[in-house]
C-alpha cells in the first residue's frame, strides 16, 4: 500500500497546478455569470423574448423560466457550461495521468518498482478524482456565496445537489477516459472518446426530447440521468446519483481488470 500511496501523492502534486486553474476558471465563470443576475431578476422583457422562441429551442437550451433564479442558473451555468467544464477537466486530468504519461515513457520508472500496474493506475485515478472533487467544491462554495450575496432566492440544497450531479457526470466521463487509457495508451484516442461521448451525450439529452420519436431514448444519455430531473427546482431522485456512480464504478473496474493484459507502451 505504501507504493500506491506514494504514487497517489506524486500524482496529486502533478495535478495540483491544473486543478488550481480549473478551480479559478470555474469560480470565475460562476462569478461572471452571477454578476448579471441583478439585471435579469424580474426582467419580464427577457422572459417574454425567450418565450417567443420556438418551444423545442427553449427546451433544448434549457431556457425555461429564464427570469427566475433556477431558470437563470440552469440556462447560464448548469444546463451546459458547468457540467461540460467539469467533464472536460476530468477527461483531461485522467488522460494526463494515464495514457499521456505512459505513451511519453514517464510511467516506466514507476512501473518497474514493486507496484502492481492496476494499483498504479487506480492510485493515479484517485488523485484525479480528488482534484475533480476540489473543483466541484470550489464551484459550490462560489455559487452558494454568490447566491447569498446577490439575494438569489433558491434553496442551497438544490444548488449543491445540482453541482454534485454535474460532478458525478464528470466522474463518469473521466471513468470513460480511464477505461480507454487502460485499453490503449493513446492520448488522442482517450480524448477523442472521452470528449466525443461527452458531446454526443449532451446532444442526445438536449435534442432527442424535441422529436417525439426520439424522446423516449433521451434517457440513454448520462446527461439526462444527471440533469433530466431539473435538480435546481426538484429534489434529486436517488437513482440518478446511483446510475452515475455505478456506471463510473463499472468502467473503473473493467479498466483496472484489463490494464495488465497489454504491454506498457514505450516511446
Amino acid at each position, binding site marked *: 500500500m505504501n507504493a500506491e500511496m506514494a504514487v497517489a501523492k*506524486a500524482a496529486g502534486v502533478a495535478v495540483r497546478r491544473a486543478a488550481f486553474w480549473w478551480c479559478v476558471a470555474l469560480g470565475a465563470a460562476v462569478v461572471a455569470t452571477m454578476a448579471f443576475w441583478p439585471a435579469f431578476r424580474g426582467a419580464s422583457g427577457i422572459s417574454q423574448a425567450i418565450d417567443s422562441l420556438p418551444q423545442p429551442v427553449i427546451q433544448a437550451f434549457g431556457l425555461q423560466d429564464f427570469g427566475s433564479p433556477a431558470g437563470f442558473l440552469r440556462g447560464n451555468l448548469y444546463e451546459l457550461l458547468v457540467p461540460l467544464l467539469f467533464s472536460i477537466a476530468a477527461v483531461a486530468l485522467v488522460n494526463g495521468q494515464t495514457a499521456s504519461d505512459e505513451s*511519453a515513457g*514517464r510511467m516506466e*520508472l*514507476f512501473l518497474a*518498482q514493486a507496484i502492481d*500496474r492496476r494499483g498504479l493506475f487506480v492510485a493515479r485515478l484517485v488523485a484525479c478524482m480528488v482534484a475533480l472533487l476540489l473543483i466541484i467544491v470550489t464551484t459550490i462554495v462560489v455559487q452558494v456565496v454568490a447566491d447569498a450575496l446577490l439575494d438569489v432566492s433558491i434553496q442551497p440544497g438544490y444548488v449543491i445537489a445540482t453541482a454534485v450531479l454535474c460532478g458525478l457526470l464528470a466522474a463518469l466521463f473521466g471513468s470513460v477516459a480511464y477505461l480507454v487509457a487502460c485499453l490503449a495508451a493513446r492520448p488522442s484516442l482517450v480524448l477523442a472518446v472521452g470528449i466525443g461521448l461527452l458531446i454526443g451525450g449532451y446532444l442526445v439529452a438536449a435534442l432527442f426530447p424535441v422529436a417525439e420519436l426520439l424522446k423516449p431514448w433521451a434517457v440513454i444519455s448520462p446527461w439526462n440521468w444527471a440533469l433530466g430531473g431539473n435538480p435546481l427546482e426538484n429534489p434529486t431522485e436517488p437513482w440518478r446519483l446511483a446510475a452515475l456512480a455505478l456506471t463510473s464504478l463499472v468502467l473503473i473496474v473493467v479498466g483496472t481488470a484489463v490494464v495488465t493484459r*497489454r504491454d506498457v507502451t514505450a516511446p
Partner: protein
Amino acid sequence: MAESVLNIEGLVKRYGGSVEAVRGIDLDIRAGEVFGFLGPNGAGKSTTIRCVLGLLAPTAGRMTAFGVDLVHDGVAVRKRIAYVPGELRLPERMTGAQLAATIGEMRGGFEVGRQHQLVERLTIDMERPIRSLSTGNRRKIALLLAFASNADLLILDEPTSGLDPLMQREFLVLVREAKARGATTFLSSHVLSEVQHIADRVAVLRSGKVVASGTVDELRRSARQRVEVWFEDQPSVDEFAGIAGLAEVRMDDGRLTAVLTGSVQPLLQCLVKHRVASILVEEPDLEDAFLDLYTAPVTQ
C-alpha cells in the same frame, strides 16, 4: 557455483503476431556478478529487460529472479530490483528531490546518508525541476535512484548514455561497490569499453538471439587475429589453404599473411615443417570481435 539470480529460458517476444524482437533467449546470471548484455541498437536488449520487469508480456519462455517466477510474482520480486531505463523519461514537473522521495517511499525508504552521499558524488542539483535538467543530469538522477536503493539486482539499460567521462568513471566505481556488497548487475550497453572494464561475463545479442556468451577473455580468444609469417624457404600457399581457422591466406615473396580465428595449434603444426624466420600474431582486437558478432549472419 553462485546461485542463480536471474534466469531466462527460451524468451520470445513477438509484437503484433509478426515482428519478433526476441527470438529464444537463454541467460543465467549468477549472484554477485556483473553481466554485460551487448548488442547493436535494435538487437532486443531493451525488450528483454522490459520483459524481465513485467512491462512487456513475453510471447513464450520462462523468467525467474531469485527463484521467483517473474510473470506471475513479478511485483514481489521487484522490491529487490533497481532499474535504470534506457529511454529515460522522468516526470518533468517534479524536482529530483521529490522524485527520490516518491521512489524511495515506493521502495520502503532510501537510507538518507546514502542518498546524500550519492548526490554529492554524482553532483546533482536535486532542487531543480527535472524539465530544466540536461540529459546527463537526468541520467544521474536515475543512477541515484538505482544505487540508493541497495537493491540485490541492478538492471541498467544504457546507463552512461549522456554522461561525461568523469561521471562514466564514477559509474564504474558505483558498480564495483555494488558488486563488493554482493549485488548482481545486469548491464545492457552497446559501449564495449564500458562493459569490458567491469563485466565478469557477457552475452552478445543480435537480431533477438544470443550469438555469443562467455567471459570477456573467452570472447577475445575467439576473435580474429592477423597472422604474419616470414619463411627462409618458399612454401606453397596451397599448404595453408585448408588449415582450420585460417582465412584470407596470401603468400607474397616468402611472407604469409592470414587471419586466424580460434586456436593457433593447427597453423603451428604446419609451420614446423618449414624454416620460419619470424612470426607475428597480433593481439586480438576485442572491438573487431564484437563488430564481427554484430554483423555476422544470424542462424535461424
